[in-house]
């Protein structure tokens, strides 16, 4: 290994070991870390939806939950296909871990509710969750994504999340 190659190897090692660990703000995440957050966020909402299908008899809640599973699965399939085309893998990071930890608390809470109490809490959580994800995607992710195809997928995702937010808001109002 000549001196130039050795320097390049050290630079690569430094970049690999330091960059992910330093990302402590959503805006600092790399494209592959952002992809991981999106995949995680989709899966969390799919888990909430499966819980709703297991616990709710309300036809509106059940139809909404089925739509969440259908739409978020479609987004995740597109994301995985895109990552494969780009030859990269999604990278776990602090934000994915935080989303998972927060969702575990909410799933525990939801699991203990039944009937109208569950329906109201599920609908409100869907509204809050979609609003939080929309803020994250619109303000922190899309402006910082480098790859044009990844950005296009997030813009499509944002459109879907906004429709879900509107649907959840109607559900919350109807359950008042």
């Amino acid at each position, binding site marked *: 290994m000549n001196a130039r190659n050795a320097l390049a190897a050290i630079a690569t090692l430094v970049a690999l070991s330091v960059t992910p660990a330093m990302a402590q703000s959503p805006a600092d995440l790399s494209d592959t870390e952002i992809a991981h957050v999106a995949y995680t966020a989709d899966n969390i909402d799919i888990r909430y939806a499966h819980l709703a299908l297991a616990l709710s008899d309300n036809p509106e809640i059940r139809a909404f939950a089925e739509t969440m599973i*259908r739409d978020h699965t479609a987004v995740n399939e597109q994301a995985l296909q895109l990552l494969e085309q780009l030859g990269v893998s999604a990278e776990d990071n602090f934000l994915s871990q935080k989303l998972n930890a927060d969702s575990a608390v909410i799933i525990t809470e939801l699991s203990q509710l039944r009937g109208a109490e569950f329906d109201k809490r599920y609908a409100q959580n869907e509204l809050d969750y979609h609003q939080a994800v929309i803020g994250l995607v619109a303000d922190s992710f899309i402006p910082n994504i480098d790859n044009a195809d990844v950005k296009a997928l997030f813009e499509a995702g944002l459109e879907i999340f906004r429709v879900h937010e509107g*649907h959840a808001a109607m559900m919350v109002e109807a359950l008042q």
Partner: protein
Amino acid sequence: MRRAVVSRRAVLAGASAALAVTSAEWARAHNGINHNPVTHEVEVSGFAFDPAMLAVRVGDSIRWTNRDVAPHTATARDGTWDTGTLGQGESTEVEVTMEMAGEYYCRFHPVMVGSLDVSEPD
């Protein structure tokens, strides 16, 4: 011999069909009627039907194509017709009947609404 008879009948049937087609074309030409069934395209994109309102005639066809990542349907409000689930890039064609007149929507995203103005063929 039987085969010859059948063959002659087939020729006669073919000739009758040809005469019928010619008569229909003649009638259209001489009565100022000129409606051949048309296939209309509706793009499902950005959580909307485009065009949202469509004027069609009985016997026409409508082809819905989904451009969104999210799956969609085009479904009659009263449930009498439904394209079924359309994934991204998928299309379904439906032949228009008078009963399809009115509003339709996406079963998965009720905020998506379209309408059909259906008239009888001339």
